[in-house]
Structures are given as structure tokens and as C-alpha cells.
């Protein structure tokens, strides 16, 4: 009995050993999140309260929650691993791959999301383009969100097994039950409070690693010199090596980074993925809704300090027991006893964090995992209840009925996620398929939403067919490259590309190129079909489209309290950082 119980908790070797103080810190975190769920159970009685936290969050809370919903533990570990593997180029996913889109959401798009009083992104599409576009977007989002939640659940359970030796079943069930409990009880409000807590915990748990690492490496200048000596100068420059795909370790070019990542993927994710947009919709005023993504962007700019810098430090300070430099490898080639790229962050934690601090670091990872899962299930329950159940199955139910449906589908979403996690556990290749599937929908959706908001002439038929064509072409391109990887040479417009270039592009930038093409196809089809069909009247577009909407005043505030002022400050900061690390 005791033996089997021990097997439920622990399995195999582990990187880190938690002692009593570490477990106390972890237990305090679990106690707090469950308490938050119970505390908020009476504040989630109406659909507005349950799905949108009563639309009463301040700009700071909505902003931190917005950036935190994306800051999951897999993200932290994955990008620290990418920094070890590809160098400082990984920073692009935090800077040009996020900040401009967040500022654009705040200044340009948020007014339309907010004043249309929509409850979701598919809800906006329904107002702008009708039921067809809403149906495509709601079904794909709900389906993919719940699958992604399961994939994340499995991936995190695997991480916990590697780092702490926890049994996979234990991690999946404890995580799922805790998250399910606090989201079912407190709805989006619970999820948001926990995301703000998670943000603080991640910094509290991870900020010491780069500080101590830099002390040991002798400062940034010495670190850079050592990286150049070991790996080459491509590892410490953001832009100067991106002239061609072969001159940097990631195989990316500046055009793919700016247009593909900085414009399409990033704008698609940060401005139309309902998981993050839902946090901003909970803001208590238009001004707060505009400020929230800008506050989020300011914090996002500093996240590389706790993600990218530990990965870079790992290249220099991680050593084997005999004092030689440790070499991490890809998961697909790792042999017994070898550590993989994704383990760089836990390895750095074990290196510098003693009892107590290690517990903080592990708590940060667990918090990231749980709030990521909560983000997925709360967004899923909103889209399911409003845009699928309420739109197609039961249009005239009472508000109380919809709240009950939201609670139930949170539970069902959790169960489907657990099922997906076990499905992935039985066949790991499913994980790659699910992650690829998610990327199919984002880029075309951005094409449809941005044309809908900025172009009065876009019609109902144009929106629907554009979204459908973009999504179908994205899936088609993926299948085409899957059938023969060499086909990617046509997507990158280099028909005579060598196998070496193809391999590099496939590893990191296939998604970027597929996104660029599917977005372009969506936009072209939307424009052509719109020009051939009858437009809506200006009156019908009021509150939905730029040029047909009178944007309400944010109030009489001095310049330094206005969203546009802070957007410019953050934008200048972004440009300065890119020049510093050019």
C-alpha cells in the first residue's frame, strides 16, 4: 500500500530535491489559490460576473493578467531552452514579436472590442460579419483551446516528472482539480486574481537566477565575450546576423522576423486570441481597456531578463561534476544522463537556489502551469456558452442558466483536457499535431478581424470566405510540407534551397512563413469577395469599424495619463533596446 502510494507521487530520477521549507512554500500557494476560489464564489452569479469578472478590473490588474495569461511555465522553460540553443535571437519573440501588437491592440483595436460590448472575439465577428464567420472562429477556438489545455497539462506533468520526480498522474490530477475548483467557483475573477499572483511569483522565483548568474559570469560584457568565444557572434546579436538564413543559428531572416513574426503571428496572437483578449475585456472603462495592453507590454519587455538571460548564462556557467562545460542537446537526440535544452532553467535553479528559494522557483513554474490552464478553460467556457451553446442550441435561456452552463462546461473542458493529456501520453506525436493545428487559425483570423475593424467596405460574405480560405490554405500548406519537407522551399520563395537551409527553416520558421501566406490569402479573398458583394450601411457599422464610429472620450486627463503617451514611451523603449542589442 505504502509502496504504491509512493509510486503515485514519485517516479524515477529527478533534477531537484525539495525539502520541508520548499514544500511549505508550495503548500501555501495551493492553499491561497483554493481560498481565492471560495472567496469569489458569491461574486460570480451573473454571466457578466462569471465570464467577464463584472467588467470592473483596473488597468493594472487587467494588464498584468493579460501578460500573465501568456507567461506559462512551458513558455518560460521553452524560451530559456531556445536562448541556450539559438542565443539572443530568441528575444525577438518577446520584443518585436509581442510589443508592437500589444500597443496596437490598446490604441487601435480595443475601442472597437470595448464599445461594441462584445463578450468574445467570435462575438465581435458575429456583429461585424454575421453568424458564418462567428461559427468558424468559435468552433475552431473552442476545439483547439481545450486540446491545447490537455497538451500543456501533459507537457507540464512531464516537466514535473523530470525536475521533481513527481508521477505524471499525480501532477495531472492535482493540477486539474485545483484549477477546475477555483475557476468553477469564481469564474474569470478567480482566474485573473491568480494570474496577477502568478506574475508576482514568477518574478519572485526566477529573478535571482540572472542576478546570481551575472555575478558569477563577471557581468554582461564578460558573459558576451565568453559566449562569442564558445559559440560565435551570432549568439549575441539581435539583427546584425539576420541578413540571410544561413548566417545565424536560428535560420531566420529580417523580413520573416518583421513581417511574419512581428506583424502577422504576433498581431494574430495578441489581438485576436480570445485567451488574452478576454483579460482586457474585463477592464472597468475604455481608458483602462486601452491602458491594460500598454501596461502589459511594458512588463513584457523585461521578461527576457528572467527567460532569455538564464538561457544565455547556461551556455557559460553550467558545468559537469568534473568542471568541464555542460553541453545540452535536443530532446530527440538526448541519451541517458544527458540534459536537454528545455532543462536549462531548472538546471540553473538547482545551481543557484538553496532551500526555500528553490521552492519559490518551483512554485513559480507550478503557478504558471495552473494559470495557463485556467486561462484556457475560462476562455473555452465563455466561447462555448456565448458563441456555440447560446448561439445555436439555446438562444433564449435565462442568465442564471448560462452561468450554470459556464460552470458545467468548465468541468467538461477540464475532463476533455485530462483525456487529451492521456492521449498525448500514449502517442507523443499527437502533441506536434495539436500544436500545429493551433497555428492554423490565428493568422487568418487576424486578417479577418483587422479588415473588419479598419475597412468599411468589407462585407459579411467577404469576412466568411476570407476566414475559411485562409484557414483551409494554412492546413493545406502544413499537409503539403508534411508530405514532403522539401516543399517548404516554395513557401520561402527559394526553389533551389539546400537541405541544410530547409532543416533550419523547418525547425524555427516554418510557422512564420505559413502564417504569412495564409494571412495574405485571407486578406486577398476577403477583399475580392467584398468588392463583389453588397456592403453594409454606415449605420450598421456604427461601433464596429474605424471611420463609421465615434470613439467616446477617455476623459479629461493630462498628457502623461493618456494611453497614447505611454504607448509612445514603451515604443521608444522597444526601439532603444533593439539598437542596444543590434
Amino acid at each position, binding site marked *: 500500500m505504502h509502496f504504491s502510494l509512493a509510486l503515485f507521487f514519485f517516479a524515477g530520477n529527478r533534477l531537484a530535491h525539495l525539502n520541508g*521549507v520548499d514544500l511549505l*512554500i508550495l503548500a501555501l500557494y495551493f492553499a491561497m489559490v483554493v481560498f481565492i476560489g471560495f472567496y469569489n464564489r*458569491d461574486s460570480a452569479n451573473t454571466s457578466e460576473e462569471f465570464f467577464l469578472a463584472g467588467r470592473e478590473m483596473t488597468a493594472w490588474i487587467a494588464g498584468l493578467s493579460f501578460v500573465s495569461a501568456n507567461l506559462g511555465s512551458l513558455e518560460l522553460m521553452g524560451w530559456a531552452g531556445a536562448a541556450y540553443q539559438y542565443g539572443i535571437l530568441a528575444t525577438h519573440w518577446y520584443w518585436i514579436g509581442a510589443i508592437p501588437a500589444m500597443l496596437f491592440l490598446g490604441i487601435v483595436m480595443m475601442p472597437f472590442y470595448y464599445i461594441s460590448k462584445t463578450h468574445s472575439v467570435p462575438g465581435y465577428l458575429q456583429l461585424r460579419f454575421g453568424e458564418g464567420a462567428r461559427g468558424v472562429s468559435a468552433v475552431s477556438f473552442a476545439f483547439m483551446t481545450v486540446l491545447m489545455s490537455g497538451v500543456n497539462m501533459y507537457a507540464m506533468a512531464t516537466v514535473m516528472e523530470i525536475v521533481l520526480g513527481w508521477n505524471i498522474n499525480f501532477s495531472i490530477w492535482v493540477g486539474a482539480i485545483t484549477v477546475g475548483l477555483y475557476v468553477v467557483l469564481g469564474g474569470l475573477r478567480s482566474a485573473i486574481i491568480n494570474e*496577477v499572483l502568478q506574475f508576482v511569483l514568477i518574478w519572485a522565483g526566477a529573478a535571482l537566477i540572472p542576478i546570481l548568474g551575472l555575478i558569477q559570469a563577471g557581468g554582461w560584457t564578460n558573459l558576451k565575450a565568453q559566449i562569442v568565444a564558445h559559440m560565435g557572434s551570432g549568439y549575441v546579436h539581435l539583427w546584425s546576423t539576420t541578413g540571410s538564413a544561413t548566417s545565424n543559428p536560428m535560420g531566420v531572416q529580417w523580413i520573416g522576423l518583421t513581417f511574419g513574426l512581428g506583424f502577422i503571428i504576433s498581431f494574430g496572437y495578441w489581438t485576436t486570441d480570445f485567451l488574452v483578449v478576454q483579460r482586457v475585456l474585463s477592464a472597468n472603462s475604455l481608458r483602462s481597456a486601452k491602458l491594460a495592453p500598454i501596461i502589459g507590454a511594458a512588463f513584457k519587455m523585461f521578461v527576457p531578463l528572467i527567460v532569455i538571460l538564464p538561457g544565455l548564462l547556461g551556455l557559460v556557467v553550467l558545468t559537469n561534476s568534473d568542471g568541464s562545460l555542460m553541453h545540452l542537446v535536443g530532446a530527440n537526440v538526448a541519451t541517458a544522463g544527458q540534459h536537454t535544452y528545455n532543462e536549462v532553467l531548472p538546471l540553473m535553479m538547482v545551481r543557484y537556489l538553496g532551500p526555500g528559494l528553490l521552492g519559490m522557483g518551483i512554485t513559480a513554474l507550478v503557478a504558471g502551469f495552473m494559470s495557463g490552464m485556467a486561462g484556457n478553460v475560462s476562455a473555452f467556457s465563455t466561447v462555448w456558452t456565448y458563441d456555440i451553446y447560446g448561439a445555436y442550441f439555446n438562444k433564449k435561456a435565462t442568465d442564471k442558466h448560462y452561468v450554470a452552463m459556464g460552470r458545467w462546461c468548465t468541468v467538461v473542458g477540464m475532463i476533455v483536457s485530462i483525456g487529451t493529456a492521456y492521449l498525448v501520453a500514449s502517442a507523443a506525436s499527437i502533441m506536434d499535431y495539436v500544436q500545429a493545428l493551433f497555428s492554423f487559425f490565428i493568422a487568418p483570423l487576424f486578417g479577418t478581424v483587422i479588415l473588419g475593424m479598419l475597412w468599411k467596405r468589407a462585407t459579411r460574405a467577404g469576412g466568411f470566405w476570407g476566414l475559411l480560405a485562409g484557414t483551409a490554405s494554412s492546413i493545406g500548406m502544413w499537409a503539403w510540407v508534411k508530405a514532403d519537407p522539401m516543399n517548404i522551399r516554395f513557401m520561402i520563395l527559394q526553389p533551389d534551397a539546400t537541405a541544410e537551409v530547409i532543416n533550419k527553416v523547418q525547425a524555427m520558421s516554418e510557422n512564420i512563413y505559413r502564417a504569412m501566406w495564409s494571412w495574405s490569402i485571407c486578406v486577398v479573398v476577403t477583399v475580392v469577395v467584398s468588392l463583389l458583394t453588397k456592403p453594409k450601411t454606415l449605420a450598421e457599422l456604427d461601433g464596429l469599424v474605424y471611420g463609421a464610429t465615434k470613439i467616446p472620450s477617455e476623459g479629461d486627463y493630462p498628457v502623461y495619463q493618456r494611453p497614447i503617451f505611454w504607448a509612445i514611451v514603451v515604443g521608444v523603449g522597444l526601439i532603444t533596446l533593439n539598437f542596444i542589442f543590434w
Partner: protein
Amino acid sequence: MPRHQTLSIWFFVGILTLAYGLVLFVTGTYEFSHPLGAAVQLANLHATFWWGLLMTVFGAFYTLRFRPGRT
């Protein structure tokens, strides 16, 4: 009738950070007389003690500033 919300989100942040700060502060203080083994690098800097102190101050400020009953 929904219950009126009385606890600020920042109070939750403060109370958890304060609790963690105190745990780390006590652990860090103990480590002055019982040093860590060689497995933890730069243990001589007593990061646990100083980080615990910083979190205690931060947590105490937020707990007091956003305590129930204070607007």
C-alpha cells in the same frame, strides 16, 4: 444578492509575498549558522536571507496598504 467584494487583489499579493518573505528570511538567517553545501553556487552571498528580507518588506507594504477596511 452578490456579496460585496472586500479584499483587494493587491492584498492577496501582499499577504502571500509577506508569508514567503518571512519563510525565506528565517531560512536565510538559519543558513548563517548552518552553511549550505557546495552544491549551491554563491551560497556565501546569502541570497535567501536578502531575498527574504526584500519580499518581507514588499509584502508588508502591500498587506498594510491594501488591508481590508482601508480604501
